[in-house]
C-alpha cells in the first residue's frame, strides 16, 4: 500500500511539475502577479510529492519488502541497516529517485530562501527547474520505475554488491548528486536570465551561493569516492581516470571556473555571456555524466545499468536541456552588454586565465573520455584512453594555473602591477626554492624525480603565496598587531574561504605528487612467520584466521609492523567472501603517521600454506584527504559569508559601497 502511495505521489509530481514549468513562466512574461507568485507554492508541493515517493521506497527497503522488484534485486534481509538504507540509491532506479528528490529540495530552497529575489526572476528560475524535473520524472516513470511489483515475491532478495556495502560509498552518491543537481540551480538562473535578457551584479550575487554550495558538495562527493577507491579496491590507487570518475570531475572543473567568473560579473559587471555559458556547460556536463553512466556507451567499472532504451531517453533529455539552452544562448546572449573594461594584468585578467585553463582542462578530459566513442563511431578501431594521456595533458595545464593562483588574488582590479606583485611574493619564491632543494636532498634526487620535486615546489609556492596574500590583507607585521587582529576579524568570510580553499589545494598537490612519485609496492606470497621489508618497515605475517561477519565469511591476516625492531602498529587486512551475492572483496588495512600510509592487503591463499599479500608505502597520501577536507571547509566558510545571504543587512556600511552594491 505504502509503495503504491509512493508511485502515485511520483505521478502526481509530474502534473505539479508541468504546472510549475508553465504557469509561473507565462505569468512572468505577461506580468500576471498571481501566476508569477505561485512558483514558490508549486515548488513546495513538488517537494512534498517527491519526498513521499522517496520515503515510500526507503520504507520498502527498511522493512525488506521483496514484493517490490527493486528491493528484491538489490537488498537482502541479512544486511546491516545502514546498507539497507543506502541500498535505496545503490541501484539505477533508486539513484534516479534520489537525484530527483535532491532536485526538488533545491527547488523548494529557492522557493523558501529566495523570497527576496525579484518575483519574475524567481518564477522563471523555478519554471526552468521544473522543466528539468518533468524530464527526469518521465524518465523514471517510463523506463526505470522503482515501485514495480514482483509476483510472487521471493523469500529473500539477491543482495547489494558487497563493494558498495561500505560507509564511504553509502554517502558518496548523495553528495555527488547534491553537487550535480546543485549546478542545475546555476543552470536555471542562467536560462532565466537569458529569457529575461538581463544579467547584472545582483544576478551573479544570487547565483554564487548556489554554485558554491554545489561545488562544496561535489568536492566532498569526489573526495569520498576517491577515498573509497583507495581503501576498498585494494590497489593503493585513488584515481583511475575512469569515464565515470571523469564524469564527476568535468562538472567540478567547469563549476570551479563558474565560481570564479561569477565573481567578475558581481564585482565588475564583465564576462556576463561567458558566465552564462559556463553555467549551462557545467550542468550539461553533470547530465552528460548521468548519460555516460546509464547508457553503456562507454565501458567503465561503474556502469551499472547499461540499457539502450534508457540511453536514448537520457540522450533526448540531454539534447532538450543542453541543445535548448545553447540555442537560447545563441539567440539571446549577443544582446547582453558587457560592463567593466580591464587590462590583461589585473584581478579580472587572473580570473579569466583561471577560466581559460579550467575550461580547457574540462574540455581535455571530455575529449579523452569520449575519444573511444568517437573512434568507434568513425571506425578507427577500439581504443582506450588511459592515465598516460590524462597525466600528459593535465599536468601542463595545471602548472601555469597553480603558478597564477598565487599571483591573481594579489593583483588589483582593472589594472594590476605584475612586477610589484611578484616582488611581494618573494617569500613564496623562497619557500618554493627551499622545498625543491629539501625534497631533492631528501629523496636523493636524480633525473626521474624532477617532476616530483617540481610538484612539491609548486605546492609550497601556492601555500606560501596564499598565506602572503592573507598577511597583506590584514597588514601583518606592517601594522601593529592589534590593528592586524582587528583587520583579521573584519575580513569577509568569503576572503577566508578563498585563503583556506587555495591552501587546501596546495596540500592536495603535495599529496598527489608524493603518492604518484614515491609509492612503493611489494607483491609476494607470504606464509605465517614470513617478514617482508617495505620502505624501511618490516611486515611480519603473524597469522591468518578465518572468521564470520554478519553476511560474509572472511580471512583476516595479522601483520606486525616494526621499524628498526621497534613495534609500529598491527595491520589486519581482510578478504571477505559475501554470501549474497557471492562476491569477494578486499578490505585493506591502513595505518597513517600523517606523512605516509602503510597499506596492507591480503588476497588468495595459494593452497600450500601461503597467501598472496600486497604491501604499499604511500607517502603524503594522507595530505590528499586533509587537503580535500580543507577545501570543503573553505567552501563552507565562504558560504557562511553574510553577503551571500541577499537581503541580510550589511554590517559594514563603511566599506566602499561600489564593490557591494549591484551595478544596475
Amino acid at each position: 500500500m505504502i509503495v503504491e502511495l509512493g508511485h502515485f505521489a511520483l505521478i502526481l509530481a509530474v502534473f505539479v511539475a508541468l504546472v510549475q514549468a508553465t504557469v509561473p513562466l507565462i505569468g512572468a512574461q505577461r506580468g500576471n502577479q498571481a501566476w508569477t507568485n505561485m512558483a514558490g507554492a508549486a515548488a513546495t508541493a513538488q517537494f512534498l510529492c517527491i519526498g513521499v515517493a522517496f520515503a515510500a521506497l526507503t520504507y520498502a527497503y527498511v522493512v525488506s519488502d521483496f514484493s517490490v522488484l527493486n528491493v528484491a534485486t538489490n537488498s537482502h534481509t541479512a544486511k546491516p541497516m545502514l546498507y539497507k538504507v543506502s541500498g535505496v540509491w545503490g541501484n539505477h532506479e533508486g539513484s534516479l529517485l534520489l537525484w530527483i528528490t535532491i532536485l526538488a529540495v533545491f527547488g523548494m530552497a529557492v522557493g523558501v530562501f529566495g523570497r527576496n529575489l525579484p518575483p519574475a526572476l524567481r518564477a522563471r528560475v523555478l519554471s526552468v527547474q521544473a522543466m528539468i524535473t518533468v524530464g527526469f520524472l518521465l524518465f523514471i516513470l517510463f523506463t526505470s520505475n522503482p515501485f514495480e511489483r514482483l509476483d510472487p515475491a521471493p523469500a529473500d532478495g539477491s543482495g547489494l554488491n558487497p563493494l558498495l556495502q561500505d560507509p564511504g560509498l553509502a554517502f558518496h552518491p548523495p553528495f555527488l548528486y547534491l553537487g550535480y543537481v546543485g549546478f542545475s540551480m546555476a543552470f536555471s538562473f542562467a536560462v532565466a536570465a537569458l529569457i529575461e535578457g538581463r544579467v547584472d551584479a545582483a544576478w551573479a550575487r544570487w547565483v554564487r551561493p548556489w554554485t558554491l554550495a554545489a561545488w562544496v558538495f561535489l568536492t566532498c562527493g569526489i573526495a569520498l569516492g576517491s577515498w573509497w577507491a583507495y581503501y576498498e579496491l585494494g590497489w593503493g590507487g585513488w584515481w583511475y581516470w575512469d569515464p565515470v570518475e571523469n564524469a564527476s570531475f568535468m562538472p567540478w572543473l567547469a563549476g570551479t571556473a563558474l565560481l570564479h567568473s561569477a565573481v567578475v560579473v558581481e564585482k565588475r559587471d564583465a564576462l556576463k555571456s561567458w558566465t552564462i555559458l559556463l553555467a549551462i556547460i557545467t550542468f550539461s556536463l553533470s547530465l552528460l555524466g548521468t548519460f555516460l553512466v546509464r547508457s553503456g556507451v562507454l565501458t567503465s567499472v561503474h556502469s551499472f545499468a547499461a540499457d539502450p532504451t534508457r540511453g536514448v531517453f537520457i540522450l533526448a533529455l540531454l539534447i532538450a536541456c543542453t541543445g535548448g539552452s545553447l540555442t537560447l544562448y545563441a539567440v539571446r546572449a549577443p544582446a547582453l552588454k558587457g560592463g567593466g573594461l580591464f587590462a590583461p594584468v589585473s584581478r579580472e585578467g587572473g580570473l579569466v586565465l583561471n577560466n581559460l585553463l579550467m575550461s580547457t582542462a574540462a574540455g581535455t578530459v571530455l575529449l579523452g573520455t569520449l575519444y573511444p566513442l568517437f573512434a568507434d563511431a568513425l571506425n578507427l578501431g577500439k581504443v582506450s584512453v588511459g592515465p598516460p594521456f590524462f597525466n600528459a595533458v593535465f599536468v601542463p595545464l595545471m602548472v601555469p594555473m597553480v603558478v597564477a593562483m598565487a599571483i591573481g588574488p594579489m593583483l588589483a582590479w582593472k589594472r594590476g602591477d605584475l612586477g610589484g606583485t611578484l616582488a611581494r611574493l618573494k617569500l613564496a619564491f623562497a619557500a618554493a626554492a627551499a622545498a625543491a632543494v629539501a625534497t631533492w636532498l631528501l629523496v636523493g634526487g636524480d633525473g626521474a624525480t624532477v617532476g616530483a620535486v617540481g610538484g612539491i615546489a609548486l605546492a609550497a609556492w601556492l601555500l606560501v603565496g596564499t598565506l602572503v596574500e592573507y598577511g597583506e590583507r590584514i597588514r601583518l607585521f606592517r601594522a601593529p598587531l592589534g590593528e592586524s587582529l582587528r583587520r583579521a576579524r573584519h575580513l569577509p568570510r568569503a576572503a577566508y574561504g578563498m585563503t583556506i580553499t587555495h591552501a587546501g589545494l596546495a596540500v592536495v598537490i603535495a599529496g598527489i605528487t608524493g603518492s604518484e612519485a614515491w609509492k612503493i609496492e611489494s607483491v609476494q606470497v607470504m606464509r605465517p612467520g614470513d617478514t617482508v621489508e617495505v620502505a624501511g618497515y618490516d611486515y611480519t605475517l603473524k597469522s591468518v584466521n578465518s572468521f564470520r561477519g554478519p553476511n560474509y565469511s572472511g580471512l583476516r591476516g595479522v601483520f606486525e609492523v616494526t621499524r628498526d625492531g621497534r613495534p609500529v602498529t598491527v595491520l589486519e587486512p581482510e578478504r571477505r567472501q559475501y554470501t549474497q551475492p557471492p562476491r569477494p572483496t578486499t578490505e585493506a588495512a591502513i595505518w597513517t603517521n600523517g606523512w605516509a600510509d602503510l597499506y596492507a592487503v591480503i588476497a588468495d591463499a595459494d593452497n600450500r600454506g601461503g597467501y598472496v599479500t600486497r604491501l604499499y608505502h604511500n607517502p603524503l597520501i594522507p595530505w590528499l584527504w586533509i587537503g580535500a577536507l580543507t577545501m570543503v571547509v573553505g567552501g563552507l566558510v565562504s558560504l557562511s559569508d553574510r553577503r551571500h545571504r541577499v537581503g541580510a543587512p550589511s554590517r559594514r556600511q563603511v566599506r566602499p559601497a561600489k564593490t557591494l552594491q549591484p551595478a544596475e
Partner: protein
Amino acid sequence: MGRIAYILPVAVFVVVSLFFLRGLQLDPKHIPSVLIDKPIPELNLPPLPGRDEVGLRTADIKGQVSLVNIFGSWCVACVAEHPMLLKIRKTGIVPIHGIDWRDDPAKGAAWLRKNGDPYDRVGADPDSHAAIDFGVTGAPETFVVDREGHIRYKHVGPITEEIWEDTLLPMIKELSR
C-alpha cells in the same frame, strides 16, 4: 565573428550528440581480437590430472572447425555458461576444447567431474602462457577456430542460447561447408 562565437557552442553540441546517437548503437564491450584470421598460437598444454593423459596441442585443434573455451574452477560466470556447453556437446556439431586458465589443475578436474565435462581435449594453463598468446581478457571466453587452425571469432563472456543460435552456430555451419 561576434555572432559565430555565440552559435559555436550549440554547433559543437550538435556534433557531439550525433556521436552519442551513433554510440548507442555500438557496444563498447565488443572487443575484436587482434588475432582474428591469424593462426592459433603454438600450444602444448599438460592434461588435467585424472581426466586423461593427452592435454591440448595445436594439432588437436586443427583439422575441423572447433571451439576453444577458456574456463576456470574459480570463475563464477563459467558455472552459468556450463549447461550451454554441455548442450552444444550433446548436439555433436562441433568439438569443444577447454583451457583451464589460472587454476590449480586438480581443482579444474574436480570442477569438471562435479559440473559435467563438455570438452574433447583440455589443457591446463595455470601460469597464463597460452592465455596471453590467445589475448584472453577474462573467463569465460570462446574462440571459433576454422579447419586450417585460424581464429575466426572471439566471444567474450558466457555463451547464451541467443549467442549460440544467432552468432556461433551460423558461423560454424558457414565455416564447415
